[in-house]
């Protein structure tokens, strides 16, 4: 990886990022929301999908490729496109 690629990745990072805090989860660089209800939120990203399971799940922020979900988180599943 040359220096320009590393610098570009640093400035405009397109990789998936997940930050989990108590009672909330922040996901960056997803592609689209596939399913939303109070128990499950399914998101599509470049290499597959993310399945967030819990209770009273709510989307509290939804901007360009960023999503903030609050509620009681139980599990987070990640799967590839082939699955």
């Amino acid at each position: 990886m040359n220096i320009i690629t590393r610098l570009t990745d640093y400035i405009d990072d397109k990789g998936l990022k997940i930050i989990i805090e108590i009672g909330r989860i922040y996901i960056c660089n997803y592609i689209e929301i596939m399913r939303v209800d109070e128990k499950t939120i399914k998101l599509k990203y470049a290499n597959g999908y993310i399945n967030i399971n819990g209770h009273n799940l709510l989307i509290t922020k939804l901007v360009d490729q960023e999503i903030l979900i609050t509620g009681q988180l139980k599990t987070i599943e990640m799967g590839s496109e082939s699955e």
Partner: protein
Amino acid sequence: MNSNFFLGFKNYVCLRITGKNIFGFLKTLNKKKINLIAIEYPKRNEVIIKVSEEDYEKLKKLKTIYKFQEVALYGQWQIKKLWRVHKVFIIMVLLGYVILFLLSNIIFDLEIIHTNSNIRNLIKTALADEGIKRLTVRKKFRHLQVIKAKILQNNRDVIEWLEIVPLGTKYIIKVEERKLNKREEEYNYQHIVAKKKGIIKSIEASSGEIVRYINEYVAPGDILISGSFKQDDEVITNVRAEGRVFAEVWYKVRVEYPLIYQDKYLTGKRKKVVVVNFMRYHWPFLVFHPFTNKEVIKKIMVAHPFLPFNLSYEHHQEMIVSEGSYSYEEALIKATQLATKKIEASLETGEKIIKRKSLKTRVENSKIIVEIFFSVYEDIGISKMFIPKEN
């Protein structure tokens, strides 16, 4: 990622959206690339979203069965809405402020305190020439000091002291007339009379007849050197009596002197500081170790009557303040010296203090209060004109 710094400058709207499948609608908005900055869920079938102006336009074009209603506005929209709703109130407040400012800065009255109408008229004219008259804008303190000095300079033969005090919307002008020394007035025919009571100690007469003697007690108004020469109770000739009569006179002086004193001296350390002043608060820029006690020379850099604050450039000089206290004896000596200075200040050539004695001394509220009796050798003679009787 979005920066929150610029959010305050952009227009945002909070919308209440009602419908059956709220999550489905949010998914639709996401597909349409509409950014939802904040989402709240007050009820099961209701959501409150915050969107930007551009996204709101997209949302309005969206064909949907979901109802949406504006809840709150932010940015310029908020200001515009506030203006629309409270337009009259804001205009009235601003107008009120302007009127109040104008009224409080206009002088409606000039009150010249003096019994002599000539002096009052003189001062009134001099002030009018300097632009101080009714229904004019109030002058700054520094400007008033300059005007005061100018009037005093131009009328130094007439005015002894002048003070211009701004009080609300009027100026109170206190003036003291310069009075010529009556002792210097001379008449064709005059006696030298006593101006106060005392015991005569010396009489020098260059003309006139000495009618009182050494060690004789005299009361105010008693003739000391007569301008009428008499023989067998008949006036032979009248002259202008001249001479000096020194007598022992008495004063009682009450002096208060503090037992606690403060010594202040400058260390020589200096700082130049830019200060923002707002009402009684002062915020200096980049002063990491401010002086505890200091002497300040202030120069206003930026100020305007419409601005509630001003910017000043200050020279700070470190000052050390130390407190001490006098013993009773020291304070008594200081008080006596002060009283002596007071008496000496009123003495003229040839006059002197003969003796002094402390009458009463007491200490009250950290002060020594002393009553001192002074016996003074003083010229008590004053000219008094008389008109000779024609035979």
